[in-house]
């Protein structure tokens, strides 16, 4: 019942905010295996939308299709009205396994996106330093990835994505290889960071708590084949102390509702 209420509210919000990423009729098959079926989704500008679902629901596949890293079998993705046929400068990706170059320092890793674009050394390092500071890694510029913890490595990955100044950030389970305490701290920092950056986030996760904690919108996907089963907009006030959210009644209710909905897919 509460879900229907949320749904109604969602459609109301939907019309008021312009969509930056539009996914229309996306299908993806690997041979005989159907990974995604007929996905229609809009991602509103400036919001953080999570793709949530059990394993096998194709959430990472969908994210990579939006990133242009893999092609869809049918359907189209547009970003700012432009058709997506491959990676583009308006989108930046944060990888589940960090994908940091072990031979390069934090500074060079963060500046890598700009390096590939041919930005001059001084300029790109200045930008990189700024974002390294924003993700809370000041003082680690000359360290190598192997000298950092998992959480810090992913902060490098995030800083790298931020520094190319893309409008859309695509995060593929960014915290799944980060330990629990660091993950929570990182989630808090992400909320703070978002209030400063006016960017659109698309976030893949399999953690219900994580999705509810950080998202403006949650897209629930059901598995085999992956389809959109629900769109939820948790109405949680994220200003103020992030710790408070974990005790927020609305937060707890939403987590419980989503779990009741997902339960049937867990064997």
């Amino acid at each position, binding site marked *: 019942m509460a879900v229907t209420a949320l749904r109604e509210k969602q459609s109301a919000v939907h019309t008021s905010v312009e969509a930056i990423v539009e996914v229309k009729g996306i299908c993806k098959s690997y041979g005989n295996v159907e990974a995604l079926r007929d996905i229609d989704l809009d991602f509103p500008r400036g919001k953080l939308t999570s793709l949530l679902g059990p394993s096998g629901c194709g959430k990472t596949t969908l994210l990579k299709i939006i*990133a*242009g*890293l893999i092609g869809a079998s049918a359907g189209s993705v547009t970003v700012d009205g432009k058709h997506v046929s491959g*990676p*583009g*400068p308006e*989108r*930046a*990706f944060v*990888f589940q*396994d960090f*994908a940091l*170059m*072990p*031979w*390069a320092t934090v500074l060079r890793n963060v500046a*890598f*996106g700009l*390096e*590939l*674009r041919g930005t001059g050394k001084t300029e790109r390092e200045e930008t990189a330093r700024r974002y390294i500071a924003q993700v809370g890694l000041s003082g680690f510029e000359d360290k*190598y*990835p*192997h000298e950092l913890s998992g959480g810090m490595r992913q902060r490098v990955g995030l800083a*790298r994505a931020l520094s*190319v100044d893309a409008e859309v950030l695509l995060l593929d389970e960014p915290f799944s290889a980060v330990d629990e305490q660091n993950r929570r701290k990182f989630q808090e920092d992400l909320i703070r960071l978002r209030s400063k950056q006016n960017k659109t986030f698309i976030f893949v996760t399999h953690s219900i708590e994580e999705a509810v904690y950080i998202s403006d919108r949650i897209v629930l996907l059901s598995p085999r084949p992956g389809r959109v089963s629900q769109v939820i907009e948790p109405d949680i006030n994220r200003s103020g102390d992030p710790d408070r959210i974990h005790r927020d009644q609305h937060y707890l209710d939403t987590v419980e509702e989503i779990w009741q909905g997902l339960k049937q897919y867990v064997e």
Partner: protein
Amino acid sequence: MATNVRTESEATNLTLPATSEEAIGLRDRPIILRLVSIALFAGIWEIAGRIPVSFAFPTFSDTIAAFFGLIADGSMPAAYLSTLQPLVLGVLLSTFLGVGIGIVCGLSRAGEWLLIPVFIVLQAAPVAAFIPLVTFVYGIGMTAKTIAVMILALPVIVLNTYKAVRNVNESLLVMCRSFLGTRWQTITRIILPDASPVIFAGLRLGVAAGFVGVVLAELLITPTGIGDLITFHRSRADYAEMYATIASIIALSTLTLVFLQWIEVRVFRPEKRGA
């Protein structure tokens, strides 16, 4: 990390010494144990020489004395001067040629299809059989010896380079693509840096093979340099001198390899450096 190590040991498996990375660990052992180990080896050699196990088995002390004698009379330095020339030249040529071929084969399917099987055969087969043939084509000079070195060193270097390039970290390739890296940028900024530790390990194996090649060339083709020193002292039954020469070339090759490994860790493995 675990997958990294796996591909690496696989890469070395195909090549000559499949020393799993911890097996190499000469440098991990405390100095004292290493000295004890050397002393023990020398002691056993000394005793075996004193029994003696064979008329042709000199004691350790005699061999050491012979070693300094050979250095003093200048015959060993002169021999090394002539041996090292084809070795260095052959290894250098193999390095440029081998890394080049390996990269091309790693990047291009056609190159892989056409060339890699040949090098796999050359790697597994006893190519030493070619050395007498080389003599016919190039005579008994420097060219023949350099080619002998290359015959042995090239396959290892090509195959290691090829495997390193082929097994490059997939997720870094995707990352580079997502940040709009061009093909050329992907090769120079991701593939080559990621492959360089394994390529360098291949060079080390190439140097080891090069030593085998130059010794064989000098023993088989024409007695010059170290090969001449060994053959000459054997014919005069100066066994201590002969053993000293052989031990010296084994020691030189070992020291070279340890040095190269040290460079490898210092330069190419920031994750292992200063550990």
